[in-house]
Each structure stands twice: as C-alpha cells, then as structure tokens.
C-alpha cells in the first residue's frame, strides 16, 4: 500500500451512468490483485473531505496504469468527473484490502455482478484468462446501457449472460442463468458483487456444490486503510451463522467468503 500522485491518462464516459478514469500508477498497478481497491482524494480541499473508495476495474497488460469505473452518485463522483482531467494528477492510496482468491486448480468459474458491482470483476476475468481458467459472466443492471464491461468478459471466450430490469426476457434474476448453466457445468468457484440477493443465491449454490464463493462488499469508509474502525459490516463468524461479529471491509475485505456475508 502506498500513497501516490497518479497522473490522469483519461476520464471518459463509459456507458449508461458510468465513467472510466485511467491513471498512470506503475507501483500500485503492479501490486494490485483483482478485488482490491484504491482510495482517491478528489481534491486537496475540504469539500469533498474524505477520500472515495473504488474497486480497480482493470490494469493494463504492462501493469503501469489502472482504471476505475465509477457511477456519478453525489458530490464526490461529480467532481471526479469534472476535475480529474489529463494534465492533472489524482492523489490515490492503494492497493487496499484483500482481493479475490482464485484456487490454484480452478478450471471454470462464474462471475456474477449487478450494476456498478460488476466493476469489481473484470480484473478477475483477466487473471483467470491469463491462468487458462474459463470464466462465464452473469451480469444484471437496471437498464441495458448500464451493463458495464460486458465486452471484456466476452473477450476472454467465456459465455456472457445479461439481464436488464428494463428489458423483458425469460429470467427473473440473472442468477437463473447461472443455476441453469450449473446443471451441466462444474464450476470450481463463484464470485459475486453488487446485490445482496445475488450473494444469497450464489452462496446457496456454492454450499450445495461444496465450492468456494466470494463476494466484494461496500461500506462507508473514513480511511480505507484500517486505521479508523469505521467500515465494519456484520458477518457470520461460522458457516451456520450462529455467531456474528464485525469485520472491517477495508481490511478483512472488501472480498469476503459468501458464507460470511450471505445474510449481511
């Protein structure tokens, strides 16, 4: 983990409600694992006051640049869009948190994402491809144009299933596709991000199959690097959910096993 001033390479509209920021950050990019995040100070100013945490969307093959896909939500992301332009630099801390674990012997995995939660997954798809692991993607969003990064998952050769709330199709949840495919496919691990409903579904499937499943979580953060105790969520401390406890998303997470967070 380090703090750097990362020169902005580009900051452009991605699709739907999403924007894509790319910065020069060799040391951070080289150290990053899929699922980890960076914490960005948008301006050296009191407004916004706190940093804003974002999953890393992708790292370039040379591992010198990293991308963040973000949704304009409030003041911070609005200023991020307006002020982080080429010629400026972005004060960034990273890599932060614990990333996804891809089992050594995995052959086929499923990536399940909803909305901006999808943004935590492309780097994992890239890693899987590099290791010869097939990844199938199951993406949902409120509207079709918010299906961020579908082309990335497709580019690695796995199947990509999508579901948009605004477009009638034959499934209720994108996990219906997952369950159908799982009837004939032996997944070695499952990964999910973006919706508690999806996490529960993925966790059930993982339990039934006895395979690992992980989810990337979000929580409001003050520091992002473990100093403030601020970003806890309540998790299961055992698989049966008999004992519960708090865990910091920035430190123990953002990636948790789905059994930890299935009823978060």
């Amino acid at each position, binding site marked *: *983990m380090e*703090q750097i001033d990362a020169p902005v390479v580009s900051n452009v509209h991605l699709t739907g409600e999403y924007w894509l920021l790319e910065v020069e950050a060799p040391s951070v990019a080289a150290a990053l694992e899929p699922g980890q995040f960076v914490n960005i*100070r948008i301006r050296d100013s*009191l*407004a*916004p*006051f*706190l*940093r804003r945490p974002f999953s890393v969307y992708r790292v370039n093959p040379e591992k010198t640049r990293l991308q963040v896909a973000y949704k304009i939500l409030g003041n911070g992301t609005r200023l991020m869009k307006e002020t982080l332009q080429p010629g400026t630099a972005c004060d960034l*801390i990273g890599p932060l948190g614990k990333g996804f674990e891809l089992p050594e012997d995995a052959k086929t995995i499923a990536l399940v994402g909803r909305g901006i939660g999808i943004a935590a997954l492309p780097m994992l798809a890239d890693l899987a491809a590099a290791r010869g692991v097939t990844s199938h993607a199951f993406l949902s969003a409120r509207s079709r144009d918010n299906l961020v990064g579908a082309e990335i998952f497709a580019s690695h050769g796995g199947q990509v299933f999508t579901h948009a709330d605004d477009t009638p199709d034959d499934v209720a949840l994108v996990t219906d596709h997952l369950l159908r495919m799982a009837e004939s496919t032996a997944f070695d691990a499952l990964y999910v991000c973006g919706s508690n409903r999806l996490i529960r579904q993925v966790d059930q499937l993982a339990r039934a199959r006895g395979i690992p499943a992980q989810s990337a979580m979000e*929580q*409001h*953060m*003050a*520091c*992002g*690097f*473990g*100093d*403030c*105790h*601020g*970003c*806890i*969520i*309540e998790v299961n401390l055992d698989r049966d959910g008999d004992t519960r*406890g*708090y865990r910091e998303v920035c430190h123990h997470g953002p990636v948790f096993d789905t059994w930890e967070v299935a009823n978060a």
Partner: protein
Amino acid sequence: MPDLSITIAGIEMKNPLTVGSGTYGHHGRFSQFFPVETMGALVPKTIRPHQWPGNPPQRVLEVPAGLHSSVGIPSIPWEQFETEDAPRLKALNLPVIQSVIGRTEDEYAEVVRRCTELDAFAGLELNLSCPNLKQGGLDFGYDPEAAFRLVSRARQQTDLPLIAKLAPDYSSLVPVAQAIEAAGADAVALVNAPRAMCIDADTLKPMIGNGVGALSGPAIKPMAVYMVWTLYRAISLPIFGMGGVATYRDVIEFMAAGAAAVAFGTVSYVDPMALPRALRELEAWMVQNGIDDVTQLVGAAHDADFERPQSRRVA
C-alpha cells in the same frame, strides 16, 4: 537547527507532534505511511478493560469539513492486548501514552492499574468521554466531581504521568479542569470530538448506526482553539491540544493558544502524510522566523501582561 523537543507531564518528546487516540492505527498496528518514530509520542486507541465489539454500522459519514463517526471504542480481549499489543508498543522507540476508558469508576481504576503493570507505557491518558450512566448519562468529563473522583482513583493506581482527556463543553470546561488538576493529573488533552447527529431526510432516521455520534475534523478547530486558550488561562497543567489540526499552521495556532503538544486526528484518514509534512514545515518556519526553541510558542497568543497560573507538578 531549532530545538523542537518538549517535556510534557514529565514525558520527553523529541517534537510536539502526536496523534489523537483512535485516529492512528489499531493498538499495536499502524498504517505504514511514515515511521511511527517520526512523531514525538504515540497515543494508541483507547483500550477498555474488557472485550467489546463497538457500535453497529454505519459508523462513519462525511459532513461539512469533517467526519461524523460513532465507532464505540471496540476493544480486543485484555489478554490479547497484554500479550500482543503491549509488547509491540513497548518495543517502539518513542514514548507511548496509552489511552484508557471504563464504564464505571471501578473500571477506570482497574484499567489504569493493569496498564501500569504492563510496564510498557510512558504515560496514561484517561478518556473521560464516557457517559456516566449512574448520573443520567452525562459524560464523566462534564462533571467536576465525577472527574475529580476518577482522576484521584487513577492517581492512586499509577505513578505514570496521567493525562485527562476532555470533550468540549463550555460551561464545565474550567471547573472540570480545575478538579482534574486538584486530583493530581499531570496534563489535560482536549478536545475529544463533540457529540453530534445527522438525520437522513429520506428515511427521517439518524444516519449513524448508534444514532448519536461525534464530530471531528477542521469543522471543530475554531472551537477547540478557544477551549485550549481558555484552559491555558485557568489551570497550570500543560495541554495536549487537538481538534481539526491539519497543517503546521494549525500546530502553531494550537501552541500559541496554549498547547504544549499538538495531536493530529481525523486529518490522517484523508492525508496520512499530514503529520510528517507539518513537522518539516514547522521546523522550516522556525528557522525562517528565528525561533530556536519550540516551547517559545506555547501560549504566545495571550496578552503580554497575562500571567499563567504557576505549574505545580510539572517540570
């Protein structure tokens, strides 16, 4: 090279900069943005004498020029603190002032005794921002009698330098500080973060899991400076000043108001290099202004003809 060292409550600090308890690292573990030995003393997060999970989420929230938070001082089991954290803290090459809290007078006395026995600390800070449930929930630190009893009992339990930390309260500030002085504390620290609340206009409910939280960061600095300035005139104990400190100019501001040492708090979450940068800039500023001893700054904002109460216990 100007002299940045100070002695406060008998603790020798190579410079006047420290951290607000709870804003830099878990007990034995710190973020590694700069060597912890850069600062003059380390104040780790408050420890309770018993395990406690802390408050439910959501715990933190951005507010104008500040942070609204309610972490609730989660504490690891004492055995773990004793066997893992304390040795790590003891091994550091700087004075460590451990902050402690209890829910009752007995618990305060207990945790002071136990921390003293660990033989790992240069001093102890009593976090008085705990609601005294026997007295209608008012903080111990807002009640001169409760504060007097707490500090007196702590004094009996330890020979370590004792610092009492106060949250900002206008009416009780001076009487409480006088009570603390009379009870034998060696220094005061202020301000702890004042209580606050944010309500979500969508849900009409408080935004923080605990309902009530604290306010910290630059937003509170002008109040904190006033409090330090006021106490400097009222008591003779040295002061650890804090509340919204972010730059070397803030350090000078607190010292001029009367603080002998200055703590960086919330700013470290946003700008983790703030403390080492301020140290560098403070030193450069002293050189530029021909100030060769940092203690010359302490209380400099008070009128020339103002005389501070004479220090009783402290060198």
